């Protein structure tokens, strides 16, 4: 009944989902290599209480050499890598029209290319082992999209397309690829993990008010949402599974519902439903503000 300890590398493990995943795995007796950009600053809080099960090492997913050294560290320490949780990523808020080239490239470089770097680094070891698991933390934003969040949604959509392809490619080597579709949770991303486009930051966006309403709506709603613990538990389950993993594993009280609604509706019906929302969080705050501004003749 006991499960053999598994060796798992987690990216973006300094806080939020990543830290929770490392600690959940450690709690279950597994070995977690928690990677982050600044271990000196952030490592101690993640390791605390699990000194025998969590090792912190530096890794910036935008820097190939640190990805390779983190994988080498895990292999040297444990002799194998059973699973990788590609969690590192950030959100970017701002209208598409005002995204700068480098803002979009940077986002893709972390959220998508960062995953490719890790895949490149771990695949030789997993191929030698004859198996492994690559768990990519995606989001409902990888399945649907909304205003003010188009860059982020684009990056998560890209991750979904990439993962689906990767799944076919590495299956013959016994390597499984799954997308964890994360729904609504309260994590640091709502307060500090989202970047703003420069135009928005400098207060000169054409969409300033709708974007600010969106940000405020997200912050307000976040207080109503659960923290990252259950996401961590579901990912730890996926690490432990003996069964074949499905392409997508939804987590979050609303995730399956949103997916089911999306699957049932045409694009037009879905868009009409989304545009008609006037809730205080995402996306109602955006549409409500646009509607008001249109009435005022601002837009």
């Amino acid at each position: 009944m006991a499960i053999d300890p598994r060796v798992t590398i987690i990216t973006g493990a300094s806080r939020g989902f990543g830290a929770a995943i490392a600690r959940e795995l450690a709690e279950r007796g597994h070995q977690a290599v928690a990677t982050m950009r600044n271990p000196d600053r952030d490592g101690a809080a993640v390791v605390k209480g699990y000194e025998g099960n969590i090792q912190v090492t530096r890794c910036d997913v935008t820097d190939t050499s640190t990805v390779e050294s983190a994988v080498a560290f895990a292999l040297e320490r444990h002799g194998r890598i059973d699973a990788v949780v590609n969690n590192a990523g950030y959100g970017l808020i701002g209208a598409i029209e005002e995204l700068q080239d480098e803002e979009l490239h940077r986002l893709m470089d972390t959220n998508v290319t960062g995953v490719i770097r890790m895949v490149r680094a771990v695949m030789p070891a997993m191929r030698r082992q004859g198996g492994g698991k690559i768990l990519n933390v995606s989001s409902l934003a990888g399945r649907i999209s909304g205003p003010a969040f188009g860059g982020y949604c684009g990056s998560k959509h890209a991750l979904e397309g990439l993962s689906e392809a990767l799944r076919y490619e590495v299956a013959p080597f016994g390597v499984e690829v799954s997308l964890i579709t994360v729904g609504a949770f309260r994590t640091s991303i709502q307060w500090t993990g989202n970047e703003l486009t420069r135009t928005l930051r400098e207060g000169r966006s054409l969409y300033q008010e709708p974007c600010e309403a969106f940000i405020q709506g997200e912050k307000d709603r976040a207080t109503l949402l659960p923290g990252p613990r259950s996401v961590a538990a579901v990912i730890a389950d996926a690490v432990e599974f003996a069964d074949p993993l499905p392409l997508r594993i939804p987590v979050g009280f609303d995730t399956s519902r949103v997916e089911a609604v999306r699957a049932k509706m045409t694009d037009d019906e879905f868009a009409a439903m989304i545009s008609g929302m006037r809730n205080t969080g995402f996306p109602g705050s955006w549409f409500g503000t646009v509607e008001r501004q249109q009435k005022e003749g601002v837009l």
Partner: protein
Amino acid sequence: MVNAPQVVFVTGASSGIGAAAARELAARGHRVIATMRNPKRDGPAVTRGYKKNLEAVRCDVTDRATVDEAVAFTLERHGRIDALVNNAGYLLLGTIEDLSDDEILSQFDTNVVGSMRTVQAVLPAMREQGSGTIINVSSAAGRMTGPAFGGYSATKYAIEAVSEALRFEVAPWGIKVVIVEPGTHRTEAQFDNLRVAQAVLEGRSLYQGPVEALIEGHRRYAAGRPGPRSVGSIIADLVETGDPLPVRVPVGDEAAQIFSMRAAMTDEEFETALRNLGNEGFPGAYFAAEHELNTN
């Protein structure tokens, strides 16, 4: 709202999903009354490390007096009940033809009527508060069934119906109802607490071979499944969530797959898919041994 400690009443908390939910809620700082039939024997393992906010209390959901007492105790202790986790239940395997009246009725008494009794006991307090969350633990078996699972699924289908009706009824008082549907998890329900129809235990079932193969296959399958922590964690999320709750929350890969298959397939397609699954647990093990049936 989520930051304020919630008072949560959990049934069937001696092991498995109930214990996992109770401990997870306690870890998040909530005040948990973990109810079970034998708190003296089973309580200490559940409350260990959380003496301040997790208490084991006696309650047998088949005995209305103990339900009322446990609810009264909770109200006396904490003054309110913010959430009820209706989890007590057990899994009984046996074909429809083999199950005795007593086996059928006992399982309904625990799995269905037990939940209804507990709901009835907590509703007055929730109504007075003008809020409350009722979390009914169903199962992927609340959305599908198969050979030797009919009795159990009947109770879980019933819980789904009870919950859907209850949502309409108690909404006016701000009380939320949600169904949680876990797939197979590595819990005592699949091992020590798994019950098997007497006819099979005595070796006199007409379905002996396939049912035995199913039990063995199911246990082997369950042994490779994740433990109950993620279900506990998702139940805790539902206690904390300030948003309106959906009707159903499937938990884990298995339940999510069944959910999407059911949505995408006709009943007949679904039936064919189950028959052709060819897995080693439920229901593949049964079909693989079906040739042993004496059909002459």
